[in-house]
């Protein structure tokens, strides 16, 4: 039977780096997805993932064993990403270009005919989405990513952000409203 996270956490707390390594393997991919969606940049996401695991390891003594290790780890990664996004806000504009230039075969826009026109449109849409995401404040972006992409309920989002559920809900609302304003022209049905 596979051991739970809690069992590995207990071992890691007494300095068992092998046990912590198992937790890294288990949560690495999902943490990368979260970090990428929060930062919008592959290298930044890699940095966030590594820094998050290091912070988690150093702060294991603060972890409440009754809580979910995954949620706790997400909170750390969200905070790492927030720090990074905030510092990066100063060099605005760079990420949008990188995102819109990024080649990605896993693009999930429904299409049966990926002709050149549609490919160009997809790239434009992705660019607009990335741009709109960059317009969100770091807190709004975090709340939105956790609610929309990670499927966390508002209550869980508030735990990650360490704020009241009302404040988390408000951040999600503001994020969706901003995205709607920015993207509605892109998604409106052709007249």
């Amino acid at each position, binding site marked *: 039977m596979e051991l739970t996270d809690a069992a590995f956490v207990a071992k*890691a*707390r*007494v*300095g068992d*780096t092998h046990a912590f*390594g198992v937790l*890294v*393997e*288990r949560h*690495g*991919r999902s943490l*990368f*997805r979260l970090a990428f*969606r929060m930062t919008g940049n*592959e290298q930044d996401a890699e940095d966030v993932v*590594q820094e998050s*695991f*290091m912070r988690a*390891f*150093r*702060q*294991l*003594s603060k972890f409440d064993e009754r809580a979910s290790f995954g949620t706790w780890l997400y909170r750390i990664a969200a*905070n790492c990403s927030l*720090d990074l996004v*905030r*510092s990066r806000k100063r060099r605005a504009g760079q990420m949008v270009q990188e*995102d819109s230039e*990024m080649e*990605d075969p*896993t*693009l*999930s*826009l429904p299409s049966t005919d990926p002709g050149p026109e549609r490919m160009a449109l*997809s790239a434009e*849409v*992705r660019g607009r*989405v*990335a741009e*709109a*995401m960059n317009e969100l*404040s770091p*807190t709004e972006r975090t709340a939105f990513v956790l*609610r*929309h992409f990670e499927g966390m309920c*508002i209550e869980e989002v508030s735990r990650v952000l*360490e*704020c*009241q559920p*009302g*404040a988390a809900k408000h951040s*999600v*609302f503001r994020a*969706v409203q901003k*995205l*709607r304003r920015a*993207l*509605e022209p892109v*998604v*409106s049905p052709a007249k």
Partner: protein
Amino acid sequence: MNHLSEEQLILHYYGEEADPFAAEQHLEGCADCRTLYGSLQRVLNVVDSLPVPERGPEYGAQLRERLQSRLAAAPASWPRSLWNWLTPRTPLRVAAATAAFSLLLAAAFVAGRFYPQAQKLKPAPMAAADPQVRERILLVAVGDYLDRSQMVLVELANARPDGPLDISAEQARAADLVSESRLYRQTAAHTGDAAVATVLEDLDRVLLEIAHGPSSLSPGELDKLRQRLEAEGILFKIRVLGSNVRNEEEPGPAGRQKL
């Protein structure tokens, strides 16, 4: 007929509406709300098109390998070797730990009996308080503290509400941070880090005011707070100090320099 608010539509989309059945019924009968909801759905669906670079199943193992050396060098909750000795799990280790402890006791007794009396009058060396270790502990703790403080201040500084903003959550976090800061300030003053101590004092003052101020701020009051933060350059100071602290957390050949 009362239309569904945008907030209700968003909650409905995420399946968190208090009464989903009522919302569904309303949408069936209200073309305006249906149009609005359709637009919301299209926007949120297109957001899903934001691609994420795929990481294969081997990513976890690769990541683990990359982190291995850093993990081995990082202090966990307790120093590993010390913890292992304190929690012996095999009979051999129990016996060894008992023997080591007995030997230590005996050595302490003998040393106490035969150590020259005059030496006892000398002040005890502060072996446990190795300045380098102490300073590293301070750095790690201060770095974490600064990160969290910055987060609270930036959230308030970036808020652009249309009406009064409930900041009770930020107040609670500010109060927690204030209760932590005294120790860091004292330690910084004690270790001669005047620059760190000064920034921590400035930060403490701002956090105290937030923690003990009104829990709801009007856009005008938020603006004043924002102006004050800018005027004092507190966020900039925190970023600079935080960045210095993080750099110094990494052990380097140059050793520690004063901030």
